[in-house]
């Protein structure tokens, strides 16, 4: 019994940890260190409730724990003045405009408020529905819509060539 419990947890980690690690990396603002810590924390919680969670699909649960932990952490770090903002890397301007544009978009994504960032990651990178995103973030679909709209609006400005040129100098 215990053996199958452990084995199924190992299998889940082996199968899904890359995807979860990438979500963690994005929602925590692009810090590998924080992402690893978040992921371990989320998986630990999952492990603790594995007998119950594994009966269903554990991934949405893991995602929910992950994004909410990232949001809470960001909030608490503000309180603690220990903001470990992973500064977007100084990306040299490549010759290819579209590559540079994508680099700017991700840098801007990582600067968005944590909840807004999480919404964009879940909705547009993971392709979750509004309802699934709302469930993951424990908020209403209306809130998902408004956060997505605001986040996209901010990123969309960089698609305007004049703004892009101004920002990238």
């Amino acid at each position, binding site marked *: 019994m*215990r053996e199958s419990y*452990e084995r199924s*947890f*190992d299998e889940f*980690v*082996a199968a899904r*940890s*890359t995807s*979860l*690690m*990438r979500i963690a*990396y*994005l929602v925590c603002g*692009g810090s*590998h*260190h924080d*992402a*690893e*810590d978040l*992921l*371990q*924390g989320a*998986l*630990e*919680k999952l*492990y*603790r409730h594995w007998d119950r969670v594994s009966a269903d699909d554990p991934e949405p649960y893991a995602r929910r724990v992950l994004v909410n*932990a*990232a*949001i*809470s*952490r*960001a*909030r*608490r*770090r*503000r*309180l*603690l*003045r*220990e903001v*470990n903002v992973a500064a977007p890397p100084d990306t040299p301007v490549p010759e290819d405009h579209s590559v540079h*544009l*994508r*680099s700017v*978009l*991700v840098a801007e*994504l990582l600067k968005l*408020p*944590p*909840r807004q960032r999480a919404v*964009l*990651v879940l909705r*547009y*990178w993971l392709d979750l529905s509004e309802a699934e995103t709302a469930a993951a973030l424990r*908020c209403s679909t209306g809130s998902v819509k408004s956060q997505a709209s605001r986040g*996209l609006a901010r*990123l*969309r400005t960089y*698609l305007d060539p004049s703004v892009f040129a101004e920002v990238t100098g």
Partner: protein
Amino acid sequence: MNVEETLRKAIDERVAEVRPPAGLAQAVRRRRARRRTWYGVAAVAAATAVIAGAFPAYQALTAPPQAPVLSGGGSPDPALPTPGGVEPALPSPGVSAPDGKRDESTATFSPETGPFEVTATAEPEATPAPAGDGREYGGIAIGHIPGGLKWNGQTLENTFGSAPSTYSRMWGVDGEKWVQVIVYRGAAVGDLAARLAGYREQGAKPIRINGHEAFQVRTGEAMGLLMEKGQPVLAWTQPGYGIEILSHDVAESEVRAVAESIETK
């Protein structure tokens, strides 16, 4: 150009090299075991201290989780690591050792998973936590802590606000439920007073705590901004002191009881 599609592609490129660390499942088990071990050992140590009056042993055993507590024996729980597999754990930055020395290690405070999560990233130092329930510090004494919550043995000093002279301790259980009481002294009181004024401006209704005007609110990610589902905060100032209580999964009435039990020296 479609921003959603461009963003998706941009993220794909950015995370292509992001991979989880090797041995993740085992690391998760070790992390779980550390937490369980600390609680188990602390509970046993408390009982030992009461029964045998073995205060030094209690002090040693209730220190932040240290590998040696496991030495000399295996565990019937398969999740528990072997003694050699236990990772060292450290206080967080800004956490003072009992002798008042500030720890400058790189360990991370891990608040969202609870104040009892200790993540080690540096060599451990033998700094047993002060004994007791930790209710006297920063010039205050706390008369009531909700049942079941235990002090994590750490004091954060000068971490909050722009001015020094802040002291913080946390009591919790299993990282899920906790209260944190932050004491502001000297110039640091002004930081808190400014936030309280902001709460009032945003429409928060004051309550009274031991005759002082206080605010019990929820704040968002931007410190000082009220938010319906934000972090619960109960705070007030009084001559020479500012006190702020943060909590998670603790009833408002319980938090008020903590506040009302606080006496200043």
